[in-house]
C-alpha cells in the first residue's frame, strides 16, 4: 500500500515543524545585533564565544571529561555484562534484565533525585565524581543492550566451534567474541558519549558548586533570557549533532 497524499502532507509539515525553530536559531547566531531583529551578517557572537566566554569553555571541558571517562567505564562494564548474559549459564538472568530495563523506564528526574539523596546520605561531596557515577549508571543499560543485540546477530555455535578447536576461554573472548561484537561496542561507546554530553536533568541534581557541565551552563544562560551567544553555542552543537547522526546512522538498529 503506497502512502497517500495525507501522510505525505503530514510528513512535510512535521519536517518543517522540526527545522524552522532550529533554522531560526542558526540564522540569528550570525546577526549583527543583540536583539532578535535581523540587521546584518556578522561573526561577532562567535568571536565573543571564542574569546571572552571562559565559563562556557570550562563547562565544556567538564562535559568532555565526564563524557569520555563515564562512556569508557560504561562501555567496558556493559560489554562484559552483555557477554556474561549471552555466554554464561546461570540463574537469575531475568533479574538482570529487570534492573537493566528499569532505568530506561523510570523518569530521569527520579534517577537524579534518588542519586542526590544517596550521595548526601553517604556523605559524598557533590563534584565531577558524582556526575561521573550518575552518567555511568544511566549509560550502562544502553551499553549492555546495544552489545547484546549485536551478539544476538551471531550463532552461538561459533563460540562452541572455537572451544571445539581448542580455544581457551581467554582466546574465545578476545579472538572471537570481542571482534564480532566490536561494531556494537563502538556503538555503545558513542551512545554513552551522546547521552552523557546531552544530559541535563540528572546532572542538575548531582552537580556541586564548581562542577558545571555544558548543559547546566546553557540552562542558567537560558534562564537569563535569549542571547545571541546561546544561538552561537547551539549552532556549534547542532553541527556536532549532524556529524554524529550521520556517523551513528548505521548503528541505530542496535538501539531500536
Amino acid at each position, binding site marked *: *500500500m*503506497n*502512502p497517500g497524499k*495525507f*501522510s*505525505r502532507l503530514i*510528513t512535510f509539515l512535521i*519536517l518543517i*515543524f*522540526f*527545522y524552522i*525553530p*532550529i533554522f*531560526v*536559531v542558526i540564522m*540569528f547566531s550570525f546577526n549583527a545585533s543583540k536583539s532578535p531583529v535581523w540587521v546584518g551578517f556578522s561573526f561577532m557572537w562567535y568571536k565573543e564565544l571564542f574569546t571572552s566566554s571562559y565559563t562556557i569553555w570550562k563547562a565544556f571541558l567538564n562535559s568532555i571529561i565526564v563524557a569520555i571517562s563515564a562512556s569508557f567505564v560504561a562501555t567496558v*562494564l556493559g560489554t*562484559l*555484562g552483555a557477554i*556474561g548474559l549471552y555466554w554464561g549459564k546461570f540463574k537469575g538472568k531475568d533479574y538482570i534484565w529487570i*534492573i537493566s530495563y528499569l*532505568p530506561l*523506564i*523510570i*523518569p530521569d*528526574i*527520579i*534517577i537524579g*533525585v*534518588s*542519586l542526590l*539523596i*544517596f550521595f548526601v*546520605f553517604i556523605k559524598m561531596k557533590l563534584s565531577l565524581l558524582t556526575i561521573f557515577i550518575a552518567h*555511568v*549508571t544511566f549509560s*550502562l543499560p544502553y551499553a*549492555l543492550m546495544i552489545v547484546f543485540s549485536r551478539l544476538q546477530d551471531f550463532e552461538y555455535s561459533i563460540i562452541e566451534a572455537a572451544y571445539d578447536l581448542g580455544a581457551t576461554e581467554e582466546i574465545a573472548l578476545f579472538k572471537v567474541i570481542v571482534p564480532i561484537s566490536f561494531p556494537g561496542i563502538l556503538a555503545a561507546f558513542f551512545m554513552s558519549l551522546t547521552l552523557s*554530553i546531552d544530559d*541535563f*536533568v540528572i546532572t*542538575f*541534581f548531582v552537580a556541586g558548586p564548581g562542577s558545571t557541565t555544558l*548543559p547546566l551552563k*546553557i*540552562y542558567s544562560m*537560558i*534562564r537569563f533570557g*535569549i542571547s545571541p551567544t*546561546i544561538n552561537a553555542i547551539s549552532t556549534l*552543537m547542532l553541527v556536532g*549533532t*549532524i556529524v554524529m*547522526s*550521520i556517523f*551513528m*546512522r548505521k548503528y*541505530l*538498529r542496535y538501539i*531500536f
Partner: protein
Amino acid sequence: MKYITAYTLWLVVFFVIPLIIILSFSFLEKTPYGGVNFSFSLEGYKSLLTIGYLRILWRTVWISIISTFITIIFALPTAYYIAKSKFKNFLLLLVVIPFWTNSLIRIYAWIFVLGNNGIINQFLKLIGLVDSHIQFLYNPWAVILVIVYTYLPYAIIPLYAAIERLDNSIFEAALDLGCSKRKAFFKVLIPNIKAGLVASIIFVLIPAMGSYAIPDLVGGVNSKMIGNEIARQLTTAKNWPAASAISSILTLITLLGVIIFVKSSKKEVLN
C-alpha cells in the same frame, strides 16, 4: 557469570539502593534543613493531600496524555510515509538529527521564536501590531507544544522500525479483497505494529510525566508539573520525606502504567 558481576553490582549500588533509600525516606520524619530523622512518619504523604498538590498531579497527567496523543497522531503517518518512501534513508536522517539534538537547545529554540522578546514578538512590535508583546509562552499549551516537539522523533523511530519490518503483501491482500485504504490502515496496519505503537507511547508518556526542564523554562506558575514540585521540595523547601514521597508515587505510577499497558496490549495481540 563473572563477566556480569561488575555490571550488576554497579546498578545495584547506584540505582537499586538509591531507589530503596527514597522509598524508605518517604516514611520518615523531616528535619528542618534537609535530611531525615529515623522515626516513622506519614507526614511526607500527608503533606501531599492538599488541593494544590492534587491539582499539580492532575495537571501532570492531562498534559502528558494530551502531548502523547498529539505526538502519536502525527508520528504514525510520518513513520508510515518514511518507511514506504524511496528516500527513506534521507528522511530518517532528518528525523534522527532532532532526536540527537540537545533537549535544552530545542527548548531554547521555542523560547527564541515565541518568547516575550522572541522573533515573532519583535516582528509584531516592528510592524506596530502590538505595543509590548503577546505572551505565547508560560502556559500549559506552550508546555504541550514543546513536549510534542521534543518527543516526536522518539515516537517516529520505533513506529518506523515496526512498519518497515511489515511484509507489504498483507496490504496488497487486503486491498485485493476489496478493503478501502482507510480500513486497511486501521484493520491491517495498526494491529500489526502494536509492539512499535506501545514502545512509542511509552517513550513519550513517561518522559512527559517526569518533565522538569520544559515546564520550568516555558511553563508559567499555572503549568508547574510534578517534576518541578519534586525539585522545589528538595531544594527550597528542604522537605526530603515529601520529595521522596512524590518521587515514589511517580515511580509507582509509571511502573504500574507500563506493566498494565504492556500486558493488555500483549493480550490483544494474542486474541
